[in-house]
């Protein structure tokens, strides 16, 4: 029996209209519409489009949660086993919509994919969450895109684990996936080294990361009036770790009031960090978060005020994506509170 597939397309490819119809609410039609007919042909009877979701591009971008819900509902209604979106070529909002559709379906556990031109803004936003195949920049490439998408979809449906991006042809998602190799790591290392010595081609198993750069802020002009906050990845928390920040791979951060405290003491504070010897931080948490010294400086008028709350998490195998999100949240909250500068301590 053929696999059932849901196809997501926009108002234009759905034959409803162009830009003037971009606010059109989504509708679901049974069977294939527009490019879906070509998909049915390319799927060669192994899979077929059970239903098509047609949605205005503006509407989708403005109502992402609603459209994502509609997708999962439609999948359930038709008992579909996969989703394909687009192809979107170089249409920006359509690319965003297709990325949303494919990544929501994948998040729901469904094999899914879309395709678009390499400069489509939807690519950067959604590539981590979905398989996206390359297309030309306009719909004249439909004839090439559809068979490639259909072939990849059938591969996903068969339960095969896709190989790396280079081999399979999709845009690299930048997502690391564990796998068992035929040989142990040490043998792989020596084989790779011998190739490197001989100047032969070899393939690293991991390309070294590239980190963000941020333009530095200007210096604080009047420190004696400024409110300074403390933030740490050293895991200093109130005794008992009330927010259960994990010793490693933290999934949250905490905000802790220090009120009028002049000093962090071992009876009230501890570290939750599991990546270093906790003895010294537990004896005197000021060794990680210098509240005592900043209080002195506040008294001396060197700084205006030490902000009444500090933020803390455990930086130990913590995902950079989480750290970035928390940094943005903490930064926004401190800025709202009129904090002018932050001292960030790490262990």
């Amino acid at each position, binding site marked *: 029996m053929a696999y059932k597939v849901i196809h997501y397309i926009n108002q234009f490819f759905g034959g409803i209209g162009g830009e003037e119809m971009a606010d059109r609410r989504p509708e679901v039609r049974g069977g294939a519409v527009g490019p879906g007919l070509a998909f049915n042909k390319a799927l060669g009877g192994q899979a077929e489009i059970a239903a098509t979701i047609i949605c205005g591009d503006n509407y989708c971008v403005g109502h992402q949660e609603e459209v994502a819900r509609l997708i999962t509902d439609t999948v359930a209604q038709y008992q579909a086993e996969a989703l394909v979106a687009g192809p979107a070529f170089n249409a920006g909002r359509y690319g965003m919509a297709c990325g949303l559709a494919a990544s929501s379906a994948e998040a729901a556990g469904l094999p899914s994919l879309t395709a678009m031109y390499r400069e489509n803004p939807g690519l950067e936003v959604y590539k981590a969450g979905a398989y996206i195949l390359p297309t030309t920049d306009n719909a004249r490439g439909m004839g090439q895109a559809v068979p490639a998408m259909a072939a990849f979809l059938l591969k996903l449906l068969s339960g095969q684990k896709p190989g790396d991006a280079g081999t399979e042809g999709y845009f690299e998602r930048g997502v690391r*996936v564990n796998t068992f190799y035929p040989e142990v790591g040490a043998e792989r290392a020596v084989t790779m080294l011998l190739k490197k010595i001989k100047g032969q081609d070899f393939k690293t198993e991991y390309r070294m990361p590239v980190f963000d750069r941020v333009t530095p802020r200007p210096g604080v002009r009047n420190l004696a009036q400024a409110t300074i906050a403390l933030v740490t990845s050293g895991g200093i928390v109130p005794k008992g770790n009330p927010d259960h920040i994990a010793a490693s791979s933290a999934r949250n951060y905490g905000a802790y009031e220090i009120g009028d405290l002049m000093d962090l003491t071992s009876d009230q504070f501890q570290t939750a960090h599991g990546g270093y010897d906790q003895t010294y931080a537990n004896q005197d948490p000021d060794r990680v978060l210098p509240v005592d010294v900043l209080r002195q400086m506040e008294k001396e008028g060197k700084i205006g005020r030490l902000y009444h709350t500090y933020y803390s998490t455990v930086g130990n195998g913590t995902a*950079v994506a989480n750290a970035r999100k928390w940094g943005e949240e903490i930064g926004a909250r401190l800025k709202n509170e009129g904090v002018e500068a932050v001292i960030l301590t790490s262990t």
Partner: protein
Amino acid sequence: MKLELHKISVRELRFGETTKVAGGVLSINRDELKALLLEDSALSGVEFELAHPGDKTRIMPVKDAIEPRCKLDGPGEVFPGFVGPVETVGEGRTLVLSGLAVLTTGRLVAPQEGIVDMSGPGADYTPFSRTGNLVLVLTPREDVKLHEAERCCRQAGLTAAHYLASRCKTARADTVESYEFPPLREAMGAHPSLPKVGYVYMLQSQGLLHDTWVYGVDAKRILPTLISPTEIMDGAVISGNCVSACDKNNTYVHQNNPVIKALYGRHGKDLNFVGVIITNENVTLADKQRSSSYAIKLLKMLGAEAAVISEEGFGNPDADLVLNCVKAERAGIKTVLVTDEFAGANGASQSLADSCVEGTAVVTGGNANATIILPPMEKVIGDLSQADVIAGGFFGSKRPDGSLEVEIQAILGATNELGFNKLGAYTI
């Protein structure tokens, strides 16, 4: 230096009246071993459990794994500084009870100890689901402080491993492996057409409870030094580590270092294996700079053209790895790095805390943040409630049906950075 490993294969462990090996079965006199271990006054109790491959058994939290070995002849005794005197080892004959391990467990110095499942999906990730295990459930005396508790548990594992082997000295070995590490004058002249390859062996040394010991010396106090691979086989390097279970090098993987094995495997054929340099991963920048410079200087003195560099742990040791890589490559020594990854549960984050353009050849033990569900087991040795605080477990990771949802970093040896396993990762 020449060392023979006399290996006796063991497939089953039993408790019995005499400790001895016969027909692949090791019987263990519990009372004798117990009395020996309790000579350490810091221990108040020890219980023994057995676990075999395929058992529906979970062992946690596991601190260390040790392969039973003892000297048959040659200078010194295995585990110098802990069991043997601080005499140089790595020569003569050493008895190995292969196919089994001593695991130390009990409520030790959590949070960072590991899980070993003997069957089910978790078993694929730990080397110790494939060994028959004597599990020591240890209870340090209540008034014993943390660091002393770690010491006595570490010692108990080594003592027990040596004890088991030493009671089997009269048994006949199933296989004999011979390893030789010639004097430098010969090593340098040998195999002139083959590239000289060294091994930079990084040891965790961040501080008490994150330690490795070399001949009884805390590795944070060493300068990088040359060591014979045969000394490693005799337990000159042992683990005192309570850091994340997935990529700490327990004593067993030191004894069976797979990089040394792989380099010996190609020695004289594809390369000339000229030496092992142990170095550390300390907590100050000056130490990191000194150790990386010194280790690479030793590689240069050996005339190495290329080197494997293996890391232990993650986070700030990534900085040591990068320093070693950059300094070696800039000295014209080609490198392959062996590491593991912390790329987030979804695999989309940067895997390392540090980076360098020189690191063009990397082998990975896999993403330690990947999660796995470990079904309930019929028997749990140790303490299941510890899953909440074990690194990689997170609060609430014990589910109502008794299963555990954990990152694979909670599994002992899962992403080993000596390249002990087949696990790796690729980018989609």
